[in-house]
């Protein structure tokens, strides 16, 4: 591996990150908060480290596959480490472990928090907390490919490592242009949401912060009671719509913004929409049956918000679903594994993989009766190659394996079964709140230090879809030959 080249890119990434800290700094100045200095220190340290890395590194050589994986995995680890500085310097969080957890949770758009007194924290810090969501949502690496000059085909290796979805699609012949377009679509949709929230009566600061949390399917709020604090049907509906949009493939939004609405006939999108509708209906009926809310209208309102929030891996809440009937709770736990679409800002397993796994399952059953049947898996009139099907099987296996091992580990720290299971499911899937002691009304502050580190790793594994991180554990990634 060309380590100096990796260092060079990491340096550039840190410079970008340092510069992005000027946004929360603006708000800190605006509100005359006591977080001005902490943010300035963080910015100075991050930019300094960026220059150091650039100085130690060199841009000579070609960025290959191995380097691509390394830049992305270490890029995310470093971004979280330096992104944790504002929490540390401002004293909002007591330890570096907590700060790292919070920053990782931000960048990976998880939204699992260890911050107990959200409403008492300085506003610049809260802005940074939500801004990390937004940066991580479309991808910090994708952003750097879009705006920094990248060597040759290196940009492609980086994007392939950060956005590993099963079927890659380029919007334009050049990866740089593609990255730019995706970020533009992201920004346009974000602007639309801020405007709608603002028109609904939210102040500009909170509109921005909640937009960051929604568009990135993150879930950090500026209120202790999350979106529930607003008691507004309008806000609920706007957030529901944008969570749904953020959970769908951004390539489709690109074509739609260019006027080609037909693209929504995409197989994965239809599956996603139908799946969402069924989930909402299912939970509504369960809530109605148990008379949880006064009217069926309220059942529908809270069921749809929670179901869509969990499935798109956002993690905002308007109700404490920890107090819901067990069936609904378990169904939400199941949704944590489903996630958004490929090419969205959502995490977890993703609809396209689930579709292909289901189709393959049915096909294998059918083959028991007709062993010679030739049944290619077809999506959008194109055959999915057997190699991709095998890749998805092994992704699913690794995902479940990581889930099981991490759950055993969390249980060993003394967490009850439901908490252990849901904390891992909610971090690995980048959702945020889980069930029981990590439910929407609680947070992760009580988790032992060892548990916080493991959950941070789970968040990274989930965001980078496992392979990019695990591949660096292979000695072959580090050898020259």
């Amino acid at each position, binding site marked *: 591996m060309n380590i100096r080249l990796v260092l060079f890119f990491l340096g550039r990434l840190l410079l970008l990150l340092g510069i992005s800290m000027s946004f929360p700094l603006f708000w800190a100045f605006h509100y005359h908060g006591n977080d001005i200095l902490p943010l300035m220190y963080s910015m100075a340290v991050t930019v300094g480290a960026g220059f150091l890395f650039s100085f130690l590194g060199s841009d000579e050589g070609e960025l290959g596959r191995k380097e691509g994986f390394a830049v992305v995995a270490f890029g995310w680890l470093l971004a979280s480490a330096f992104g944790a500085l504002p929490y540390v310097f401002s004293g909002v969080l007591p330890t570096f472990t907590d700060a790292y957890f919070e920053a990782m949770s931000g960048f990976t758009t998880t939204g699992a928090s260890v911050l107990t007194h959200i409403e008492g924290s300085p506003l610049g810090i809260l802005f940074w907390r939500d801004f990390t969501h937004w940066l991580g949502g479309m991808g910090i690496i994708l952003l750097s490919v879009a705006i920094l000059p990248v060597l040759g085909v290196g940009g492609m290796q980086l994007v392939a490592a950060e956005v590993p979805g099963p079927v890659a699609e380029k919007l334009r*012949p*050049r990866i740089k242009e593609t990255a730019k377009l995706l970020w533009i679509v992201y920004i346009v949709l974000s602007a639309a949401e801020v405007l709608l929230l603002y028109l609904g009566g939210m102040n500009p600061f909170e509109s921005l912060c909640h937009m960051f949390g929604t568009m990135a399917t993150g879930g950090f709020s500026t209120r202790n009671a999350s979106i529930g604090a607003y008691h507004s049907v309008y806000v609920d509906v706007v957030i529901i719509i944008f969570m749904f949009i953020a959970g769908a493939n951004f390539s489709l939004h690109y074509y739609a913004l260019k006027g080609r609405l037909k693209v929504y006939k995409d197989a994965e999108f239809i599956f996603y929409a139908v799946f969402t509708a069924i989930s909402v209906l299912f939970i509504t009926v369960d809530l109605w049956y148990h008379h949880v809310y006064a009217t069926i209208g309220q059942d529908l309102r809270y069921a749809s918000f929670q179901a869509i929030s969990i499935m798109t891996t956002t993690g905002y809440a308007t109700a404490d679903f920890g107090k819901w009937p067990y069936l609904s709770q378990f169904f939400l736990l199941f949704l944590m594994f489903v996630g958004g679409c490929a090419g969205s800002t959502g995490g977890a397993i993703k609809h396209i993989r689930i579709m292909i796994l289901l189709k393959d399952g049915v096909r294998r059953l059918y083959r028991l009766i007709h062993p010679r049947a030739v049944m290619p898996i077809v999506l959008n009139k194109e055959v999915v190659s057997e190699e991709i099907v095998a890749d998805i099987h092994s992704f699913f296996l690794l995902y479940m394996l990581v889930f099981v091992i991490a759950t055993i580990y969390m249980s060993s720290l003394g967490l009850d079964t439901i908490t252990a299971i849901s904390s891992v499911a909610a971090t690995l899937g980048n959702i945020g709140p889980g069930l029981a002691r990590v439910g929407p009304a609680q947070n992760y502050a009580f988790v032992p230090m060892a548990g916080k580190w493991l959950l941070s790793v789970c968040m990274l594994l989930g965001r980078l879809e496992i392979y990019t991180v695990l591949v660096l554990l292979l000695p072959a990634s580090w050898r020259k030959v």
Partner: protein
Amino acid sequence: MKILIVGAGEVGFNLAKVLSSEEHDVVVVDIDEEKISRVRERLDVMTVRGSGSRLGVLEKAGVGADVDMIIAVANSDETNIVSCMFGKKRGVPTTVARMRDLRYSDKDATFSHKELGIDFVVSPERVISEAIVELLALPSAIQVAYFFDGNLRMYGVNVREGHMLENMKLKDFGNMGWKGVFLVAVVVRDGKSFIPRGDDVILKGDKVFVLGKTADFDRFKKEVKSVMIVGSGKVGFRVARSLSMAGVPFVKVIDVDREKCQKVAMELHNVVVLNGDGTDLEFLIKEGVSEVDGFVTTTRNDEVNLLSAVLGKSAGAKKSIALVRKIDYMNLLPYLSIDSIVNPRVDVTSAILRFIRRRGFVNGVYLEGVDVQALELAVSQDAPIVGKNLSELKGSQDFIVGAIMRDKNVFIPKGDDCIWGNDRVIVFAPTSKVGKVEKLFVG
């Protein structure tokens, strides 16, 4: 420019590589999953999987008036024709196709290529046969290119032990007592290419590209009297035909296929056709391989061609040339006792690139395995470079001016020469700087 390339084989891949590094938007179409994923992984271009002869696939690749050019280099001529026809129908201004079958590309073909919607046809067999005939005449040449309507040539030369260029300092190159002026434009050493300066020394194992007037090269030429050709396919046949038409007295063609031998024997009367195996040393010696001036292997099998060429050379042939289609095999040249390896794919790539750069662009040669390109440009009146002294040029590390043609006079410039409007020039520049150079000379 937005360029659509049909076919992701060696030619398609190399074209996509060169064009995408020159900041063009490239889309590559191929039906083969393996070929297309190689392109997807290694190049920053868009890929579409599917047959280039289907309109649906081309539409997915974005065929339309905003595409500037279609380059069809798929394996099948028919696919290439059809994709060009579709392209023209959808308003693509320029179409280029590779044609293997001479029925489509020859001058007396039933359809003219214009009728098929193709603006430019490259026939690898024709291109490569011409190159082989040219190389036979100059003993140490391994590659040849023409500039200034044939008045200037560039030869690629492999510097082996004992070659007259070995250990020569470039400064001394002018005072060797040779009539005429020559210029070493590019040196390839250990897989890296560079534009040499006066203090550089040519070493054993280098591959150098020498530029000079055609007439000046003539003295190094040897008369070719006898040539033995193994393989009587399209290339072998064409080489044999042009040699015998050029008056080479002894041309022998060898092929294992009796029927093919018969066909050649019926069409070429002055050529001796032998039915036998080109890797059978005893047979080759009996037919006088040790006495021939040239030994050319042109069967459809690369490995056979390489081995047979080694055999021929070891038996005493003065110059042996092997035809290979796999580009990677060209790297074997320094390790084999063959004089030259020719590759139709390299020449086709070169011919297509030449065609693409037409704006003020006359000619260009894509040097295989070399990151430097030779460009023949027509300098426009108002180009930024006009009137400047060559020695004072900023950024001249990036390129060198190899030769100038002014009012039919060809000369190799010195530092105090300057470039005038309407000159034709040869510029050597790294691939990534081609756009910059074009701006400087053409405006």
